[in-house]
């Protein structure tokens, strides 16, 4: 099943695209696992995901910690801590 992966702010800039539609492999149990797998896709991904502590995530638009169970989401977003307001 294809999953939409969204990137924002400097995560997006380092990867070079704002979204990718990917078929996730079996064996990714948490968001952190997904981030580790995505890091292998390109030098840009590797750079964006080099410091997982600087990343935040949302599964189907619900904010979750990186340790959250991945499940079978339609959409996952990975981004830096927010700085609005």
């Amino acid at each position, binding site marked *: 099943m294809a999953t939409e992966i969204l990137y924002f*702010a400097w995560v997006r800039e380092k990867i070079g695209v704002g979204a990718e539609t990917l078929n996730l492999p079996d064996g990714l149990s948490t968001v952190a696992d997904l981030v580790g797998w995505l890091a292998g896709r390109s030098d840009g991904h590797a750079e964006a995901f080099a410091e997982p502590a600087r990343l935040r995530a949302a599964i189907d*638009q619900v904010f979750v910690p990186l340790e959250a169970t991945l499940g079978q989401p339609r959409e996952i*977003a990975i981004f830096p*801590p*927010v*700085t*609005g*307001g």
Partner: protein
Amino acid sequence: MIAVTVDPAPIEIGAEHAAIAASGAGGIATFTGIVRADDGVAALTLEHYPGATEAALHVLAEAAAARWELTGVRVTHRVGWMVPGDLVVFVGTAARHRAAALEACAFLIDRLKTEAPFWKKETLAAGERWVEPRGSDDAAAARWIG
């Protein structure tokens, strides 16, 4: 009674205030964030997570309305390209009693800063940089928990 807007259009204070005043309140508290020219910032670009941003702001507005007796809540956040002096965000709360309006307004801007998916990039003479989150914002948001 709750209105949330995320828009690249400039924020018009008169219109924002009139919209919240129409709720029949006795008092209105507002907070407005303005782009500062600190460190030679020439421009600010606001990126957001379409759909999730509006949902997050609605959740915050509903939380404020559940916690305080409000007649109106309005959160308007500008996105896109801005220059110093431009208004980034407007939070307005209306209530019969001023304490409710004042507290709910502070709650909303504190929580918005740490919970709504916006990201700021500054443009300086030397190039661009993403704004880093501030520990003081986490502390301000945390004081509303419990």
